[in-house]
């Protein structure tokens, strides 16, 4: 099913590990030069910047080519015609992506990725235009219209399996919340259906990934499992929708209109409250047990969100000093864990260490410190408070960590 051979991908993984170990000084330069030829893969890869640029230009070309086709050959096409041609474009894009991999041996090269992404986009757009564009709005749910997100989810899953793009799996997950809206108006049922889909996926992934410990598929499955855990948590947390801290308010977009908490039955509401407290420790326990970085990260994110959402869940007022307490808690947890690990023999306790072992960690720290140092002052500067008209604290420009703000 997968386009790439296991040996090719495993060789690429070995190559990356070798580079990392050499960078950390675990191998000498002479050893690296000796071993590096043994990790040459037939696949063509590139660095992240070229990959991104190639992805962008491929998207541009495909979009422009499709537009040009419609302009030149179909001056005023009917909706059905436009939809059918979109489906043909989807097929062409997918075939081109397959060819780019099977013939040109592209691997995370940007081009084949953009083609695969375009095929999903054209498929959904084509189905929507061809099948449902003329249908009048109905207050009743129309299960047939769920065909579009269902097809999008299934095709995204196929691309994930075929090409191994983790973001294709994420796309499939994003399609899922659009499905239950066509089946039922009950928000509780919608949340349950979405969580059910994710839980089913999680069970499947957990069963499959146990066969891939320490091979090239491990990281991909780890990421997918983490995304599914996060999806289940987001589906379970009813108060997340009302939080304004998510600037993009993504969950609201998934579900459309934000339902009031009173719309949920009390047992369901309090059941989800119990669930959001139970999920983070479960996820963290699984992450630590499996030594899975992504799952641990999701567990930590879920735990933080639970703390943040607890007051709205209970109907308690939020205070301005809540973030201070959260900050102290996070810092204290980090310092405690670090010290706890550091004070053990060799700095290792139960197989965990706080020390840096990989050059990738430093790389991400450098990237993070550069980027976050520039953007964080802007993001943490609060909005002006209307509750206290005597004091104005606004602006907060990026410069100087809000030093340009005025009160």
């Amino acid at each position: 099913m997968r386009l790439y051979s296991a040996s090719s991908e495993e060789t690429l993984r070995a190559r990356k590990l070798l580079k990392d170990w050499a960078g950390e000084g675990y191998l000498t330069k002479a050893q690296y030069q000796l071993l590096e030829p043994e990790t040459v893969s037939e696949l063509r890869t590139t660095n992240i910047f070229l990959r991104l640029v190639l992805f962008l230009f491929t998207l541009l070309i495909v979009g422009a080519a499709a537009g040009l086709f419609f302009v030149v050959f179909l001056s005023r096409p009917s909706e059905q015609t436009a939809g059918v041609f979109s489906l043909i474009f989807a097929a062409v894009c997918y075939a081109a992506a397959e060819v780019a991999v099977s013939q040109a041996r592209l691997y995370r090269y940007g081009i084949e990725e953009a083609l695969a992404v375009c095929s999903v986009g054209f498929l959904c757009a084509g189905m929507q235009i061809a099948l449902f564009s003329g249908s009048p709005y109905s207050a009743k749910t129309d299960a047939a219209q769920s065909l579009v997100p269902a097809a999008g989810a299934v095709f995204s899953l196929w691309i994930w399996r075929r090409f191994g793009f983790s973001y294709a799996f994420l796309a499939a997950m994003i399609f899922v919340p659009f499905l239950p809206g066509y089946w039922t108006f009950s928000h509780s049922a919608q949340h349950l259906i979405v969580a059910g889909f994710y839980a089913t996926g999680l069970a499947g992934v957990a069963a499959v990934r146990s066969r891939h410990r320490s091979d090239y598929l491990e990281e991909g499955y780890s990421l997918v499992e983490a995304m599914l855990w996060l999806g289940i948590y987001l589906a379970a947390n009813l108060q997340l929708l009302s939080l304004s801290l998510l600037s993009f308010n993504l969950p609201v977009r998934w579900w459309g209109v934000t339902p009031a908490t009173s719309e949920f039955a009390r047992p369901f509401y309090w059941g989800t409250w119990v669930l959001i407290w139970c999920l983070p420790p479960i996820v963290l326990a699984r992450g630590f047990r499996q030594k899975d970085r992504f799952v641990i990260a999701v567990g930590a994110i879920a735990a933080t969100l639970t703390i943040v959402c607890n007051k709205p869940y209970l109907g308690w007022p939020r205070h301005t000093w809540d973030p201070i307490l959260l900050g102290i808690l996070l810092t204290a947890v980090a310092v405690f864990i670090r010290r706890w690990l550091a004070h053990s023999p060799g700095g290792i306790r139960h197989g965990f260490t706080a020390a840096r072992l990989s050059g990738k960690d430093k790389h991400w720290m450098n990237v993070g410190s550069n980027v976050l140092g520039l953007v964080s002052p802007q993001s943490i500067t609060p909005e002006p408070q209307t509750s206290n008209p005597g004091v104005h604290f606004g602006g907060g420009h990026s410069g100087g960590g809000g030093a340009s703000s005025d009160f």
Partner: protein
Amino acid sequence: MHETCLPHGPSGTQYQPPLACAAALGCRVSSFCCSDLWLSRTLFIDELGGDQWRSPKAEFSIASSLTHLLGYSYFLSAASLSECTMSNSWAEPVALGSDAGYGHGVPRPGNEGFMTIFARLEQWKQQSKISPEQHAHLAGLSRGEPFSLFLELNVLLYAGVLAFVAGLGWTVSTWSAQLGDLLILTVLSTILAVCFWYCFSRASAWSPAETSAPSPIFDYVLYLGSLIWSLELAYLETRFHVLSGRLDFDLLATAVLFFFLAYRFDNRFVLSLGLSSLAGWFGLTISRWSGPQDAAYRQYAIVYCVLVGVVAAILQRRGLKPHFLGTYLNVVANLLFWALLSGVFNREGYGLWFLALLIACAASLAWGLRRRQFAFVAYASVYGYVGVSSMFLRGISDATAILGYFVVTGVAMLVLLVQIGRRFGRSA
């Protein structure tokens, strides 16, 4: 020598391999930890990835017919016919199935040559390419033993500091009237004093080279102090008009302090704060960017870029924290391109801006190729394409012409970038 060679994280913690392994690693060639490696890591460029090529044996009958529709035929043909730089024909044949008893990654049918990392390590040990100690150490790392929580703990610390300062700012802004100036300033000053006392008392002697932090939380204490300084200064200015309403002095003073702290304590977080403060002083805060028509901001941006770029080059040449150069250049490049593009988008007098954009693109491309930093090649490609496209499409409203332009030039750019990638692959 080893200590100076090993890269350090911001917190300075570094895993020490077991003693036996450390002894085995003693034969490392010191030149491996050369400045190129340092530069490559500090500039967060994945240039080592390069562009890996081989010459596939594929036939292109189906490929060309399918891809021709999208204009890819040239690209794919060129790619397939390209010379390889990383052919595996000279690689040693690898044995199948030697999993070294780890039980991981069983080879699957149809995957000849499949070999897990454990099998490779075992083979390398048997061939005496790595020592038994290295084998044990690297196999352990591959199994996640030990498992490093370095990144997670750093993210947790960062999030903690950010949440704390955000809450403090929110509280001060909401309750300043009730709390009173004295209490607020006392609290802020106390936190500030403690942070800076901690940093100055714990810091090691200054060095112009990259240095590690004396403790894991050091960088975050410094970051907290810097943010608190900004908060307190803004509060003082707003309540007491210390600088007589001249917020630009406030920003300049903040920028100077941040640059001092960044260089004193070797901290990129604070360096980024300093750069953004300086940009703010130049009138270049993001939220006040009022659009491409504003010539004043454009001029400020260019002056800022020239100033920061020149100073960064001088500092790097003099060996003062040369690893900061990447941070400077990435900020400068992006700002400069934005500024020049805004000039190109002008309805009148855009010729000089377009010329300047082309020069900047050429410089960025040359720098990226010379230093193998593909970020700058990417900047030149994207910003240059946008600028050139805006010039070519100026006044054209025909949809066919516009779409045709994007198809043709897009394919041309794709081919060009792949060719550049090939050269990178060859020289990398």
